């Protein structure tokens, strides 16, 4: 790898940061937004913290008197490096030094609401209004210089923060004095296409120096003067959803039970919300542990065990939503020559943030300040408005970095917790969840059932394919809203099971159904959302078809795959791993060999967002595994991963995301499943929910296809999506046993091997 030995310390000294008031921007930061509050129709309210309009250039770009640039984006950096990548986009669009750009992210009073930071969307989609605004600002600068110099605009260039007109150089800061940018964003303006100084380069991440030095970075590190410490006590139905009596389950709180403890400021009870506030953190924790709280009994969960989950998901009520139904598809399914009917089951997974969620709130003087690590600061603002019956523009939500979340963890929940406790004591309160609370209550990546029917014609080509996918999940309301009764615990289904539900293979007849279902336990999106399980089904099933056809698994797929980007990527992937053509199992090991090796392939382009949605990066996996036939242990030896991300704004950042996806999804596929009893989650620490460790790390060979002239595609999830099927296909190649349920734990593999052996014996 390439090391950057020069300028490693640049970040410490890079910024010439501007104080808000001293900024002679194109309007000042504060001034511009105040003015906008009067002019923009959607910001008509009178609170202290109006949300900047996503329609105005002024909301995205500010230029200081010294020429420095501040850019605003409602999305946040979840540890993926988008703060750096967004800065690169702005620097190149405006022709300024990267070091002159400061990104402000996810701050409700400063950044427009571009929706939650989900679906790998930040670079592909949510950067666009900011880039358009930057292009408009550059156009304005050229116009101003043209007026000043008399040189026609077409003869004017921009370079490193200067406009060059007729041999004269005008600094951006000088030109913008007295100007304002209260103009609408023009989404038709052409973005810069070439000659980039930063786009396409692996610019070093701006956040890493502070992270290695322990400088203030995280919400967990923020200390507000006069701050007290809060902890919550949750109902005993850990991680349950609305089937539990959330909102009406508290019987009593015995405050005397902690009367002997030092430092207690207040016990806060509001409906089913129970919290303790103390002077010191460890005092709050002691009070949380010792406060005697009595709850109603509830043990209404169905069988959520690994062996029972399949039937539970089969029995769970579903509403069919047709995503695609070709004419005659049902008939074609009935008439296949060789039927291949399969149920695939995905377990409940935990996001597993290493740092339990944290927030600080300060409630007073008709205003609410919240500091958060949420991926949805603007949604937090709406939650708090509902919780406290105030207008959202009285609430300021500031986002600091947090422990990686990979989807919705408890970051939003703790904001409401902190607000309730701060309101009760009249002082700022910091809340951090304990490990068992984060693990127990984080909205889980849901279990999923995918039922496939269809099969082959007489030539062993696919004749028909039907997929029905059930994803019992929703958005998970902020817990305090439910506990305090502000939101009824009414259970709702959410249409999110349809991600990548339609395979990219052009089968002659297809029928694809999303079986929408309410959550069984508290669930929300997790990396790869429903696409990862859906692709597990698509790519396992076609692999079985290829085997039945005695065909090379890749060649067989290419019969149905027409997308040229996909075909080109797969060609690269074959070269990358030196793919040897031929059907699976052609090198089957002797029966008495204990350690057997296999190789599996899977491909997917991640399609996400509201159906039919759109595609992010394309990815392939070729994975080599070793299966121990005595213990059932599967070792992932090597992963060849290839990805087409379009133009890569920061190739090192893309590679890092690819590596992260490979490691995390390998962990999910081999090891991970949340455990439950009848009342809720029981895997509440790392002993009960092991994740991949350094000594289990597979070798990773990552290939990033260079496509600098294509649009950048989301890179945050795609490389996870082929994982499960690729590993299942490799296990099949090694052992002849096909696993239809994730994770591929040793006991499951061993059971499948034994079943196959006794099946083979009895059929002899």
């Amino acid at each position, binding site marked *: 790898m390439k090391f950057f030995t020069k300028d490693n310390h640049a970040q410490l*000294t890079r910024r010439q940061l501007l*104080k808000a008031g001293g900024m002679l921007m194109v309007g000042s930061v504060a001034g511009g937004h105040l003015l906008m509050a009067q002019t923009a129709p959607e910001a008509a309210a009178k609170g202290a913290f109006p949300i900047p309009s996503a329609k105005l250039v002024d909301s995205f770009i500010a230029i200081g008197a010294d020429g420095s640039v501040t850019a605003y984006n409602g999305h946040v950096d979840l540890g993926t490096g988008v703060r750096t990548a967004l800065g690169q986009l702005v620097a190149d669009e405006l022709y300024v030094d990267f070091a002159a750009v400061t990104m402000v992210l996810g701050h409700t009073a400063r950044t427009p609401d571009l929706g939650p930071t989900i679906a790998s969307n930040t670079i592909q989609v949510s950067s666009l209004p900011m880039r358009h605004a930057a292009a408009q600002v550059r156009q304005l600068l050229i116009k101003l210089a043209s007026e000043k110099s008399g040189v026609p605009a077409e003869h004017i260039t921009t370079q490193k923060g200067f406009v060059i007109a007729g041999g004269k150089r005008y600094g951006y800061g000088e030109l913008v004095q007295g100007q304002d940018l209260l103009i609408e964003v023009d989404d038709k303006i052409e973005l810069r296409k070439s000659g980039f100084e930063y786009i396409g380069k692996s610019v070093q991440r701006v956040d890493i120096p502070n992270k290695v030095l*322990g400088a*203030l*970075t995280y919400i*967990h590190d923020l200390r507000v003067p006069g701050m007290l410490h809060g902890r919550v006590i949750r109902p005993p139905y850990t991680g349950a959803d609305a089937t539990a009596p959330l909102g009406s389950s508290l019987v009593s709180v015995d405050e005397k039970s902690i009367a002997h403890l030092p430092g207690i400021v207040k016990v806060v009870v509001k409906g089913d919300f129970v919290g303790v506030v103390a002077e010191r*953190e460890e005092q709050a924790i002691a009070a949380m542990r010792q406060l005697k709280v009595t709850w109603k009994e509830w043990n209404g969960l169905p069988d959520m065990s690994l062996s029972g989950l399949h039937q539970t998901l089969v029995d769970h009520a579903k509403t069919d939503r047709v995503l695609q139904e070709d004419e005659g598809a049902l008939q074609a399914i009935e008439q296949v020559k060789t039927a291949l009917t399969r149920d695939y089951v995905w377990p409940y997974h935990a996001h597993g943030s290493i740092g339990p969620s944290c927030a600080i709130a300060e409630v007073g003087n008709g205003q609410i300040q919240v500091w958060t690590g949420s991926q949805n600061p603007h949604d937090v603002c709406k939650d708090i408005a509902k919780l406290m019956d105030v207008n959202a523009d009285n609430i300021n939500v*500031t986002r600091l*970095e947090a422990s990686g979340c990979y989807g919705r963890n408890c970051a939003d929940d703790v904001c409401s917790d902190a607000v309730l406790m701060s309101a009760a004591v009249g002082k700022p309160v910091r809340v951090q969840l304990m490990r068992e609370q984060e693990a127990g209550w984080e909205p889980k990546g849901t279990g999923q059932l995918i039922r496939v029917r269809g099969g082959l014609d007489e030539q062993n080509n696919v004749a028909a394919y039907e997929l029905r996918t059930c994803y019992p999940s929703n958005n998970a309301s902020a817990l305090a809203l439910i506990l305090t009764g502000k939101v009824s615990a009414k259970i709702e289904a959410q249409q999110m099971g349809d991600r990548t539900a339609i395979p990219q293979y052009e089968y002659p007849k297809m029928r694809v159904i999303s079986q929408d279902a309410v959550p069984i336990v508290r669930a929300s999106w997790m990396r790869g959302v429903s696409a990862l399980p859906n692709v597990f089904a698509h790519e396992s099933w076609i692999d079985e078809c290829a085997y039945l056809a005695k065909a090379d698994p890749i060649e067989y797929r290419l019969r149905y795959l027409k997308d040229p980007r996909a075909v080109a990527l797969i060609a690269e992937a074959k070269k990358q791993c030196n793919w040897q053509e031929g059907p699976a199992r052609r090198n089957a090991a002797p029966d008495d060999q204990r350690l057997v090796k296999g190789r599996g392939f899977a491909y997917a382009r991640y399609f996400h967002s509201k159906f039919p949605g759109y595609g992010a990066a394309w990815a392939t996996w070729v994975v080599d595994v070793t299966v121990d036939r005595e213990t059932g242990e599967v070792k992932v030896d090597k992963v060849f991963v290839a990805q087409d991300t379009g133009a890569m704004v920061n190739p*090192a950042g893309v590679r890092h995301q690819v590596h992260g996806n490979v490691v995390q999804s390998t962990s999910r596929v081999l090891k991970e499943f949340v455990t439950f009893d009848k009342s809720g989650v029981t895997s509440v620490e790392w002993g009960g929910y092991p994740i991949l460790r350094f000594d289990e790390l597979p070798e990773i060979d990552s290939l990033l296809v260079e496509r600098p002239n294509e649009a950048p595609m989301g890179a945050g999830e795609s490389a996870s999506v082929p994982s499960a099927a690729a590993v299942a296909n490799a296990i099949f190649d090694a052992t002849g046993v096909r696993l239809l349920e994730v994770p591929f734990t040793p006991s499951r593999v061993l059971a499948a091997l034994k079943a196959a052996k006794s099946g083979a014996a009895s059929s002899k």
Partner: protein
Amino acid sequence: MKFTLNGQEVDAQSAAADTPLLYVLRNDMQLNGPKFGCGLGECGACAVLIDGKVARSCSVPLKAVDGKKVTTLEGLSPDASKAASAQALQDRAVLDVSAAETKAPATARTYTLHVVQQAFVDAQAAQCGYCTNGMIMALVALFNQQPKASDEEIRHALSGHLCRCGTHVEIMQAAARARELIAKGHSPALPAAGASTTAKAA
């Protein structure tokens, strides 16, 4: 309870003797390096060095460090950490509308980082970075014992440190980079006692 924190003697008067060291470091000493992850010694995010050995501060009571030398992430490159912290506070004036006004930014200068921290910057070995503290502290302890530690020994030393972002590849590259820098003569030793520190006495 008195102990030496990043080279400076401190007295945690307002904490009870059985308080986990982690809370004393974070709340009384206002340090950010050690992080609360699990409170059970399972994840490693809270790692510090106690007399040069890596320890999980969430599971060490304050009384156990009486008279001992505790080193946190901030103690590895004290001047750089101090400058970065000051700068981070100033940045908040722009990044956060609710932040207090601060003084003008400090003048630009560069700092020499501890070799393991430098290696993490070189290898860009963080995603969210919440586990980074533990990874760095574990490697500092390892390289002080075994400056030529093999990849296998590195994996072993880190196997009790969890990372959820999947930064393992880059962290292994950072460890290899640190080993390379050490071989070129950069010392993995802790700064000498009496060097400046970011700690504030309670």
